[in-house]
């Protein structure tokens, strides 16, 4: 099945969600909790993450959209990025590379 990565606040996390990137929580300057990429979150994990003040995580979501819907969503995201960057000087290498990375991030 096709998947996609999404960064979400801890308040949106649910049991069964699969981590899309390793999750490390630094608590009082020390690494206090860590879960590997691909780990499926349990209710206990969610409790631990709240207790350790985790604020966000990267999860891998099943992408059940049709190809057409993926294309529509990607076009909408790209339009919004282009609206935000409307009128900027894309001949400036710094601006151009920032624009490219934001566009790719939003299209993922």
């Amino acid at each position, binding site marked *: 099945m096709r998947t996609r*990565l999404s*960064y*979400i*606040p*801890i*308040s*949106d996390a649910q049991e069964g969600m699969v981590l899309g*990137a390793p999750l490390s929580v630094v*608590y*009082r*300057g020390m690494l206090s909790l860590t879960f590997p990429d691909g780990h499926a979150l349990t209710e206990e994990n969610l*409790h*631990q993450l*709240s*207790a*350790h*003040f985790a*604020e*966000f*995580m*990267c999860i891998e979501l099943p992408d059940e959209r049709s190809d057409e819907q993926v294309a529509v969503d990607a076009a909408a995201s790209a339009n*919004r*990025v282009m609206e*935000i*960057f*409307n*009128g*900027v000087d894309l001949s*400036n*290498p*710094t*601006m151009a*590379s*920032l*624009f*490219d*990375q*934001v566009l*790719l*991030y939003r299209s*993922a």
Partner: protein
Amino acid sequence: MAAMTISREEVILHSTKLPSFPRFVTDILAALDDPEGSITVLANCVIRDPVITARVLSMANIASARGRYAGEISDVYTAISLIGMGQVRQITLVSCLGAFVGGVAVQGMPTTFWKHCVAVGVCCEEVALHISAPVSSDAALVAGLLHDIGQLWFYTFNPELYKKCWHQALTQAVSIEEVEQDYFGVNHSTVGAWLAEHWTLPTGIVAAIRGHHVPDSAPGDTLVAMVHVAEVLANALDLGGRDENRVTYISTAACELLELTWDEKIRPLFGRIEGRSRHANGFFPAEPKH
């Protein structure tokens, strides 16, 4: 030629129409380098404010649910020892400044103003953690939260004219600083810096507020570069739910100073910023004036 020219004296005089600037913020920043004094200052700040106390105790009680502590935590000192100075300092700073901004009841002021400030504050903190240059994350957070404080002043000074400025900037694809300069003879960065000086904030934060749209005017100043890049990122990532999010300029020199390279390795930083910004805006809404 500007329609009017607002002076520093006028800005300070009119600042009395803003709520009192929270002294806790300057006290906390002044005590950052003194661990002994810092805990006393912080505890006093927390104890005197019921909203901050509630937030700190709530976090401490979530932590105590792990089972190390029996019973409910109901005093601030135990809470600080449990969740740590850094966490309590962050809650206190954001809560104080959120209440300050929320206390400005100006008709027509976008409700997304504070969300944008929080997003830039979070970006500053995350960029501070991402780069190798040593920068106080607390100073970065405060500079980010206050970077647009000059806009808040314009809203209280002349709400109708300032709304016109915003509309013009949005519809004519010109920067808000240029339009402010045309209407008021001064822009929000300068007004914000005057206010920050008046409130005796550290000079680094004053410089960051003044220079966040023109970081090349303060070459080598990491905090200025950081707030500039943080605001660009908050807009680029469309944080804070603002229709008016726009990128107009990014300083190559500021990116180089922070050693930031915009390649595929930067995307996890985007994700962290987005996730934390949504979390922070849920936890720290501005408290509206009643």
